């Protein structure tokens, strides 16, 4: 039996791929997977006090805000694959792409060997305890920016495992930005293994541009800067240094920035390129053409007063097969899939956004058709 095409699509009518869900990885969970001497460090951290995504030496957030009652902003965590599967079922989500919690801040660590060891431990922990084709929980290989050669080895190791479908590029506190040539080994490995790279930021206020926000009082100022502005800054450097030209088969995904900044980046970069083409000598086409070929996760989905403006926004960057759903579960600013599904998209665009585009992008198994 086929569904009545006159009825609006419901959550059970579409295949939903959630391109951003977070597995909580306390230090003691990673301790068995990390090399010495770092195991001693994680064992010590595991015995110490831990606040939500705020663990010195492990999840350094530099929280300078005065607390107020009941403003925990969620503080939810998912600590097992079973819990994640159950909660995604509640949200009608078929497939989840896993990202870390604490290690969203891994790029700030000055100690290169420690950072690389943390990345290896996280990837091994994911492989051992989380990812499974049967449960629809897939991994994104953590590429530690401080050690691109080691990250490339990790990508080649886990890229051969069909439970890993992407490479996670940490953005928060990153220096230099992802367009720098030092990261070429990571892009080379990701392209070779056929894994999209996914840039993902988080709300920290140190130590580098555009995160040096320690002087800013308001969270609603800091939050879009350390998310959307950070993604924009990285995109600009990737375009200028020709990442999409030098790695033409590499798919690039931007996570946790919504979509409304994309047209600005296209038109601003095109104007700069027209005036200063020597600033991007690798390019063979205007910047906007590369930007249109990249992918953008929905969360945090814009909620304009006129919802149809969001359709216009997506059309401005020809994004009907480039926008992919993400919830950011279980974080405080997650989007329920219903929120995105109920936007005034046509049925095909809804299917594309909610799962079909991601299914192709991540080469996921074809789902059993929904009756």
């Amino acid at each position, binding site marked *: 039996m086929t569904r009545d095409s006159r009825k609006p699509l419901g959550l059970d009518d579409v295949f939903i791929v959630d391109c951003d869900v977070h597995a909580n990885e306390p230090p003691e969970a990673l301790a068995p997977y990390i090399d010495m001497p770092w195991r001693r460090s994680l064992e010590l951290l595991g015995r110490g006090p831990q606040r939500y995504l705020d663990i010195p030496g492990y999840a350094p957030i530099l929280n300078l805000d005065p607390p107020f009652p009941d403003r925990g902003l969620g503080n939810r965590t998912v600590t097992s694959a079973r819990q994640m599967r159950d909660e995604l079922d509640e949200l009608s989500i078929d497939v989840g792409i896993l990202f870390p919690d604490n290690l969203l801040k891994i790029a700030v660590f000055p100690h290169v060997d420690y950072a690389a060891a943390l990345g290896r431990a996280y990837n091994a922990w994911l492989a051992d305890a989380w990812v499974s084709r049967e449960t629809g929980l897939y991994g994104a290989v953590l590429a530690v920016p401080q050690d691109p050669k080691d990250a490339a080895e990790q990508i080649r190791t886990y890229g051969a495992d069909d439970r890993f479908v992407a490479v996670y590029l940490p953005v928060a506190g990153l220096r230099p930005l992802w367009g720098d040539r030092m990261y070429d080994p990571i892009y080379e490995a990701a392209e070779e293994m056929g894994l999209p790279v996914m840039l993902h930021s988080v709300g920290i206020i140190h130590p580098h541009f555009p995160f040096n926000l320690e002087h800013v009082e308001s969270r609603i100022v800091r939050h879009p800067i350390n998310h959307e502005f950070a993604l924009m800054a990285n995109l600009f450097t990737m375009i200028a240094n020709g990442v999409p030209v030098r790695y033409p088969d590499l798919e690039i995904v931007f996570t946790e920035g919504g979509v409304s900044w994309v047209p600005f980046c296209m038109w601003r970069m095109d104007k700069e390129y027209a005036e200063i083409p020597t600033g991007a000598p690798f390019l063979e086409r205007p910047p906007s053409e590369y930007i249109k070929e990249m992918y953008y996760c929905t969360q945090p989905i814009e909620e304009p007063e006129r919802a149809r403006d969001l359709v216009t926004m997506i059309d401005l960057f020809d994004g009907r097969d480039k926008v992919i759903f993400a919830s950011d579960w279980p974080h405080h600013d997650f989007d329920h899939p*219903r929120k995105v599904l109920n936007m005034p998209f046509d049925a095909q665009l809804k299917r594309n956004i909610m799962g079909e585009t991601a299914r192709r992008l991540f080469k996921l198994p074809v789902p059993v058709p929904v009756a």
Partner: protein
Amino acid sequence: MARIRVGPADEIRPGQPAFVTHGEIEIAVFRLDDGFRAYRNRCPHQQGPVCTGPVSGTLVATADTDWRLAWVLEGRVLICPWHSMEFDLDTGRRIRAQSERLRAFPVEVESGQVFVQVGPRSAASAARQRA
């Protein structure tokens, strides 16, 4: 119009609502200083379980506070556990977004027992349904 018994009035404490269900509708009954309020446990933002969130106060800075931060409405602000949307428990309106409101139901207290009236939405969603 259905009349649903919630339970003894003296067992509903400030900040700790009592829940009842009517079909698929879950309703929470809150005690305020001047009586009770009943709201549907569904946030108008993303339909989260709003009434399971904490009851607290909120920060404002207005001309009345000489543009300095002030903590106000203690015990009257319901915070949705999903996205921290704030609602005034007295009126059901979203604080700082008055056009959004929780669905309200009339409350009655009779012989020490609390009842909610569940009926057509238009009548039930009046802003203030005092007991």
